[in-house]
Each structure stands twice: as C-alpha cells, then as structure tokens.
C-alpha cells in the first residue's frame, strides 16, 4: 500500500459513511427506519440484496477457490434463479399483503405466536453468531495485508457500519450497498483486465485459457450426479434452489430488503434482477481466479500466499528445502505450459502441475506441523495478486472494495437482527403498546447493540475462531431447513395448522442433526430433506389430529 492507495481507501470509507447518512436522513418513523417507508426502487433493493449476500470472504475466497479448484463452484448458484421465480410468485405478494416488518411476524398471522417465537429465536441465534464472524473473517485478512492488528481492522469496520446503520436505518444500508456494489463491479473489471494484461506477451489470452483449461480450472459444469459432491449440476440446481429459497425466503436479512419496495412489482423485479445477474457475476469472479492461476503459471507466486506465515516459515529449519523444490517445480511447470501453448502437449503439463501442487501441499503440511493448526491460504491468493500486480491507487480501491463487501454484509445483518429483536421480541412480549417514537429509538438502540456485540464478539474471539467459523457455517446449514419447511407449509398447505407446523420444525431439526452426525450427505441437500420432513410431519399431524392443527 502506497500513499495514493491510502488516500483512495480513506476517501472511499468516508464517502460510504457520508452517503449512507445522507440517504438515510429523515428516517424519523419506524416505518421509515425499518422499511424505508416502502419507497425503494427495484434496482436499489436488487443491488442491496446482492451486496448483503456477497460478503468479503465470499468475494476473496471465490477467486481463491477458482485458483485452487477451478470454476465448478458456479454451479452452486444454478438453483438461485428458480428460487427467485418461486419467491416472486409466492413470498413477495404474501409478505407485502400481510403488511409485516419481519417474515416471522407473518408466521403468527398464519399459525401462532409459538411458531413465530421458535423461528425468530432460531434466526437470532444463527444470524447473531454469524454477525461476529462476518466482521472477524475479513478483518483478519485485511490485518495481514495492511500489517495492522486484527482488532484495529475489526473496530474500524465495525464502528463505521454501526454509525451509518444506527443513524440512517435501512435507507442508509440500502443506498450504501448500491454505492458499494457499483465500485465492486468496477474493481472486478479492473482486476480481470490487469490479470490478462500482466500475462507475458507470448502467452496472451488464448494461451491463458489453454493453460487454465488443461489444469481443470475452467471446468464450470459437471453433469455427474453424486450426493456427496456439493458442486455438480444437480446439487446446484436442486440443493442450490432449496438453499436459495431458505436464504431469500426466510432469512430476515434478505426478506427485509425486498419488503422496502414501493410495490409488489418493484420487489419482484429486485429478486428477478438477482436471478439474472448473480450467476454471470459469480462466473466473472471465478474467471478472475482462473486468469490469476494462468498468470501465476508464468510469473512465480510465493510458495505460501499468507505473508506472515510465509515469513515465519522461512526462519524455520527445513523450509529452504521445500522452497528449493518449489522453485524447480515452478520452472518445470512453466516450461511445460509454454510447450502446451506451442504444441498442444497436455500430459507433460498436467504431470508438472501435479508435481507443483504436491510441493505446495508439503509447504502447507510444514506449517501445520509447526503450528499444530490446519492451514489454508486460499483466501490470500487474490490479495497477493492485488498487492503485487495492480497499479498504485487501484490497490487502495480493491482493499476499499473488500472493506465495502464486509460492511454491506454486516450492516444488513445487524439491521435485520435489530428488526427481529424489536418487532418479534420487544414489541411482542416486552412493550406491547408504545408510541412510534418509542419503537424507533428501541430500533436504533437494538441496531447499536447488535453492532457493538458483533465488534466485541469479533475482537475477543481470538485464535479459537477458526473452528468457530466452521461451526457457525454448520449451524446455519442445520437450521435453515426447518425455517424453509415451516414457510413452505404456511404458503402451500392451507389446511395445516399451528401445532402441525411447530412439531414439523422440531421433527425436522432432529432429522437434520441426525443426518449431520451419522451421514456424509453434502449440506446442500439438508434443505431439500428438511423441507420434506416438515411437510410430511405437518401433513401427518393434520391427518390424525385435525383439531390440533387449527390455525391460531
């Protein structure tokens, strides 16, 4: 980072906060604060949905994933457009007509208070844990790149988000997201351009495609069905559709975005915009990773992309031997890649690529042996490229983009957590009758609380966070199926009542936890199985105890 990069970064952060506060002014009623007075146009909601979903880690790790594993991850999103169509036809008009602030409020209208409390409680636990992680994970990556303590990056990002989210409410969140997504798109295009432009003249774009393709980095579609493989066409279409239904249809951090629409049509368009734009965007991000792979085939990358770990490893006995083997493997692969471009000879290149990967794995094992912890530097691949190859000023812009991606996800999370806390808990059970102004201030305080909680949680998570991130991801995939199932019952099974829905969720969670404990089924399938279990239990109870199933 050079002085111009710092100027760009600081100006960008000031601009985000100022713009968010400017657009969020006038949020002086609870409707304005939580639902933007239902005035949002489709493009603002659409970009905000996209920004909330694309966290910094998603953004950094997606490019890294293409570098190490190819582009097959894009299949994960194939079910998303189908889910968006289903939600546009069902959830959007239902939520709008129910005139709710939260998705869970609708569950009380449809079933009873107990089901609403159960599902909103699940959301608060799941999203509350995730909020700390959303802040901590990019803060650690940025702290390594900037050379700052991770608590400083955590507090900096957290306090900026808390400032504009607390003061401006959802209007500030949404318009800041629009601004952030615009710059994210611009930075992605620049990054791809630089990756291709940095290739040696004799390689060129066609050579890069040949090299990346021969190494399996351009395999985007796999037609082979395997329930234990999370990335193939079928798991993407079916599992991905159910995951997207759960995420966009039941998670308040997403539902709240499209509830701000000025009409049902505007909300539908925001989802359908995502349906059409999301897959090309993910393909584009993955393609950047594949082009970085091609570039690093001809320009030697570090043996390990995590700079602090690499620096430490170099002080340890035995690592020099690995680096010497790495240098030799790199030169061999480079020669084989040059031959591949010249003559189309693939087998020698593939052998050289396998040998290169073995040395990289040995380097990772060396670190794991030294630290006793699992090591994975996928998240540092793109940042290594950014800091070494992008021109001055653009590096600052890309780092700003990573800050933006993190902040847009966190702002959406704390905003939705505050909304559920106030609407589904405080206004429902603590202070049932109060003025609009009272609930507005309760919402502001709840937003500040969840923001500060996320900062404190992230700041004091410490080294145990590695395992915690994994645990939180698992918890998310375990709870979504029950949430999806109960909304499917609510929308499509009019004869199923409150008790059937409640016990359906409980039964579903038991089944999903058992699947997680005793099988190796890929988590994308949990939503499919879970939703079916809720429906089956709901229908069974309705059949045998019709009196119990009367809606409250």
């Amino acid at each position, binding site marked *: 980072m050079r002085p111009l990069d710092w100027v760009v970064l600081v100006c960008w952060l000031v601009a985000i906060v100022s713009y968010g506060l400017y657009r969020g002014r006038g949020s002086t*009623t*609870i*409707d304005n604060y939580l*639902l933007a*007075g*239902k005035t949002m146009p489709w493009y603002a909601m659409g970009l905000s949905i996209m920004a909330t979903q694309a966290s910094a880690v998603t953004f950094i790790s997606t490019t890294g994933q293409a570098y190490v594993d190819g582009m097959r991850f*894009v299949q994960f999103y*194939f079910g998303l*457009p*189908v889910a*968006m*169509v289903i939600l*546009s*036809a069902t959830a959007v*008009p239902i939520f*709008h*007509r129910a*005139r709710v602030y939260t998705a869970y409020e609708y569950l*009380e209208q449809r079933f009873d*208070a107990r089901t609403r409390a159960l599902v909103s409680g699940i959301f608060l636990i799941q999203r509350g844990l995730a909020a700390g992680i959303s802040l901590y994970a990019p803060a650690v990556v940025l702290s390594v790149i900037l050379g700052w303590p991770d608590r400083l990056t955590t507090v900096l990002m957290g306090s900026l988000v808390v400032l504009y989210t607390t003061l401006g409410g959802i209007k500030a969140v949404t318009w800041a997201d629009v601004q952030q997504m615009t710059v994210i798109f611009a930075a992605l295009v620049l990054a791809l351009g630089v990756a291709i432009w940095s290739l040696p003249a004799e390689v060129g774009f066609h050579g890069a*495609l*040949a090299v*990346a*393709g*021969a*190494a*399996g980095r*351009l*395999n*985007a*579609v*796999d*037609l082979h069905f395997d329930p234990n493989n999370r990335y193939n*066409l079928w798991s993407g279409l079916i599992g991905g559709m159910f995951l997207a239904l759960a995420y966009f249809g039941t998670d308040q951090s997403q539902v709240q975005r499209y509830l701000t629409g*000025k*009409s*049902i*049509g505007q909300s*539908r*368009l925001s989802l*359908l915009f995502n*349906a*059409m734009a999301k*897959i*090309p965007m993910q*393909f584009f991000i993955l393609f950047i990773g594949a082009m970085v792979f091609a570039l690093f085939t001809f320009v030697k990358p570090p043996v390990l992309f995590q700079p602090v770990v690499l620096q430490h490893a170099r002080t340890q006995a035995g690592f020099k031997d690995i680096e010497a083997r790495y240098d030799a493997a790199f030169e061999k692969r480079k020669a084989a890649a040059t031959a591949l471009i010249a003559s189309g000879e693939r087998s020698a290149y*593939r052998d050289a690529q396998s040998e290169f990967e073995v040395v990289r794995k040995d380097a990772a094992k060396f670190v794991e042996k030294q630290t006793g912890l699992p090591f994975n530097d996928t998240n540092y691949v793109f940042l290594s490229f950014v800091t070494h190859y992008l021109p001055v000023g653009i590096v600052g812009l890309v780092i700003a983009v990573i800050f933006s991606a993190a902040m847009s996800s966190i702002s959406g999370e704390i905003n939705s957590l505050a909304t559920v806390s106030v609407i589904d808990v405080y*206004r*429902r*059970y603590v202070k*049932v*009758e109060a003025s*609009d102004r009272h*609930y507005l201030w309760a919402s502001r305080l709840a937003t500040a609380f969840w923001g500060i909680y996320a900062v404190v949680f992230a700041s004091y998570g410490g080294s145990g966070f590695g395992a915690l991130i994994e645990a939180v991801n698992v918890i998310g995939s375990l709870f979504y199926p029950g949430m999806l199932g109960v909304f499917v019952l609510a929308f499509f099974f009019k004869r199923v009542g409150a008790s059937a829905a409640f016990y359906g969720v409980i039964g579903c969670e038991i089944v999903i936890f058992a699947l997680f404990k005793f099988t190796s089924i890929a988590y994308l399938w949990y939503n499919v199985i879970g939703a079916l279990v809720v429906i089956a239990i709901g229908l069974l109870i309705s059949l045998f105890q019709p009196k119990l199933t009367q809606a409250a």
Partner: protein
Amino acid sequence: MAQAQSPKENLKEVIDEPPPFLGRWTRVYALVLVWLATLILLFYLFSRAFAA
C-alpha cells in the same frame, strides 16, 4: 399474551402492478428460466471447449 398493535396504518397501500415489459409476470418468469438454461448451456460448452 396480547397481540401487539401494529403501526402498519402508516404504510402505503399494497400495489400489485403488471411488469414494465412483456405484459405478464409469468412471461417475465419464463424469460428468467430461459436465461438460466442458456447460461448453463454456454457454461457447459465453455467447459467442454477447455476440458482438462
């Protein structure tokens, strides 16, 4: 526990208008699904062209 009174009277009327193009929402949904099928086909051809 009593149901909280919602300040939803402040919210505007719920409007359900036709889409700005193609006339009916079902046609817009069909367009999205055709777009998805096209993308999958293009990505498949892309994968085949550069297959490892």
